[in-house]
């Protein structure tokens, strides 16, 4: 290979632009942290509270990983909240029936993937707009969760699944020498680690694999992708199944957090998930949106909620703030992209 010695817009510039795309969300996060650092002094800026926020990010964060793929491909998924509820109920029922944690968690993930498969199937086979399809499954999956749970919370022994969302996890499973040397700030809820590892894997999937490139190509210019030989329908189906599975995983952890399967949980969570992806720099017209951005977006929203709670700001103020941040983030993004002229 030739050395890239000319001053061209090459890999370095591409990297610089990716970083620039994340400056906005990151600045937003810093502003929110700084603001509450002043307004809510009692323990907001503590390691313990940071862990709390990280734990509160997990559910939305995991689902936002899948949603990033969908939004990047030019689609939308409104069924996330219902898929989370369905997965939590399925997991609880399986535990209640005496199955172990692992098979139960897998069943929960599969329930989410099934919702995704219905979404993807309807979008690709019937050529329906994703908004309509997932609006339908938003209702249908919620209904299925209530039906399975007999319209009630499903009590079940949660076993070690509970540990996943615990800020003081039981470290006895770790080998002794790690347990003794692990610094306190690294003792995070396992769910946070799961989210971080999933995000890393998903970022790799998006950037380095054929699947990731096709996802971007479909969102960027679907007719061209088809013309170039990208199996558009198959790829879309896979994207929705993957996103459904991520929502299912979020549902399993929701079960771990609540220690019950709750068919009415995560109402409206789909909007938080979309907001996280959009605050992270994605455009709903497709082609953009990064995993790291979505993670920052999810963390920003959890920080906002946490800060408001600590400083006694009423819930409605928090809702107004989140609304303002979403509109502001998209406006800034529009100005930036208008100048770049995509």
């Amino acid at each position, binding site marked *: 290979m030739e050395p890239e010695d000319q001053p061209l817009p*090459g890999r370095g510039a*591409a990297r610089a632009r990716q970083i620039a795309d994340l400056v906005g969300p990151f600045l937003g996060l810093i502003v929110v942290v700084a603001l509450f650092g002043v307004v809510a002094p009692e323990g907001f800026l503590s390691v313990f509270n940071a862990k709390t926020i990280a734990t509160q990010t997990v559910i939305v964060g995991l689902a936002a990983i899948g949603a990033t793929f969908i939004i990047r491909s030019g689609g939308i998924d409104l069924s996330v909240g219902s898929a989370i509820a369905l997965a939590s109920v399925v997991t609880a029922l399986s535990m209640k029936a005496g199955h172990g944690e692992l098979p139960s968690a897998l069943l929960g993930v599969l329930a989410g993937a099934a919702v995704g498969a219905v979404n993807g199937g309807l979008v690709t086979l019937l050529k329906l707009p994703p908004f309509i399809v997932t609006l339908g499954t938003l209702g249908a999956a919620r209904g299925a969760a209530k039906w399975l749970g007999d319209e009630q919370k499903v009590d079940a022994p949660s076993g070690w699944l509970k540990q996943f969302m615990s800020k003081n996890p039981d470290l006895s499973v770790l080998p002794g020498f790690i347990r003794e040397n692990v610094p306190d700030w690294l003792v995070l809820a396992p769910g946070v680690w799961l989210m971080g590892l999933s995000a890393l894997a998903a970022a790799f999937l998006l950037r380095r694999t054929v699947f990731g490139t096709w996802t971007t190509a479909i969102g*960027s210019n679907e007719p061209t992708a088809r013309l170039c030989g990208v199996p558009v329908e198959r790829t879309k189906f896979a994207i929705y199944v993957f996103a459904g599975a991520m929502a299912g995983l979020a549902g399993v952890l929701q079960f771990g957090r609540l220690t019950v399967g709750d068919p009415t949980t995560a109402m409206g969570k789909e909007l938080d998930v979309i907001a996280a992806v959009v605050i992270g720099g994605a455009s709903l017209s497709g082609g953009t949106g990064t995993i790291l951005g979505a993670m920052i977006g999810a963390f920003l929203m959890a920080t906002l909620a946490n800060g408001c709670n600590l400083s006694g700001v009423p819930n409605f103020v928090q809702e107004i703030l989140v609304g303002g941040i979403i509109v502001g983030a998209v406006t800034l993004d529009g100005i930036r992209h208008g100048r770049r*002229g995509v």
Partner: protein
Amino acid sequence: METGAVLRRRRPPRLQIKGVTKRFGGVHALRGVDLEADVGEVHALLGENGAGKSTLMKIVAGALAPDSGDLWIDGAPFAPASPREARERGVAMIYQELNLCPHLSVLENVTLGRETSRLGVKRLDAPRVRLGQVLRDLDVSSFTGDTLVSELGPGDRQLVEIARALCLDATIIVFDEPTSSLSAPDVDRLFRVTRRLIESGVTVLWISHFLDEVKAIGNRFTVLRDGETVGRGEVPETSTDEMVTTMAGRSVAEAYPRSSRSPGEVALSVQGLAGASGPREASFELRSGEILGVFGLVGAGRTEMLRSLYGLDPMTAGQIELRGSAVRRPRPRRWVELGVGLLSEDRAREGVALDLSIAENITLSSVRRLANRVGAVTRQAKEAAAEPWRGRLSLRAGSTRQPVRDLSGGNQQKVALARLLECGVDILLLDEPTRGIDVGARVEVYRLLDQLAAQGKAILMVSSHLPELLGTCDRIAVMHRGVLGPARPRDDWTEDAALVAATGGTR
């Protein structure tokens, strides 16, 4: 032995087309096309709008199948069933609207759909080397494989498509109006790249309206007219005048109603108009009671001139005077208030609201006048206002309640015109008013325009159909690459002269 040697000496042409026909419904798009393009030549395909060039190229690209006729590539029969099959035989198309994913890098675009991977992870090393080689061969250094396509201008994006074609081992590259959206330096660079392409043995089919550019880059040419091959030859040995004569050919006698008109005062005066979307220099005076024609080929910037004038696209320079008083910062709403209406070339999207009724369409721009005392606009009021137009324009519709979608193209256009007239405009800017309308309805539109001009309205009519301009207009100006030439009385124009001016040829 003898024949073998002869065969080897006389290589078959790269692309040969013989007797190709294609019809759509009752319309003959192609009625017998022959073409021969050699290895390593730029073969120009010439013809007016509607001559059949696009249809022919779609057949070569495998997007359409011919009704009859044969194609060969390098002497082997070529009948592609799909674009993919044509690509595999080495045919690459580079369309006007480029087929790239702006959010992907150049390398990702070039390899899209044919990625090599291991366990799903892309292996880009070999394609990266290949692309680097191709870009070096083309002497392109303004971008690399890692540049995002969204950061490239139209000229560079076109080069990405050329690079993709070469990475796919294309031997025939078809350019469809390749220079229409390029700046002058980009055109020069495209010429350089094209020369390198033919040096390496690629055959280039060059579709263009611009004869100056054909003179600069072409080796041989084929002329299509009305779906037939009517001429061919060597570019260096043929003058642009001869090419124009072959392209225009016949003069079609069409019925153009024409009452006596007496042009009056200057209604609209435009000086040195330039706009961000393309027009570079347009000046004209439009008088009441006349029809001023603007001729130009697709891509010359006529629509953009109207859009900049009307405030739909940003205007970067120029003065506008309406009946002697200056108009600053033109805005569509302001123009309507001043009595100036624009009819878009895109009837379905900007001319009429397809799902609304005739009455609602006609009253759309003037609906505030119809409000009653409490500010409500009743359906009866709209229908009462629209009803007279049904007779006046001989709209073929049972009632004004009918949705516009159900009407023919010609009647839709009449509704769009009625909307402008109903809100009281007396200066009409019409962009391709007869596009997609059958001949009978055209004549009705011509008659209507003639009546309006006789009543003293000022009409500016943009068209790429030269005979209709020569038939209906009082004066005609020609636009070429964003520059509007002087308006001259229509008797001073011939079809040839207008085509020469529109193609940038020398006379």
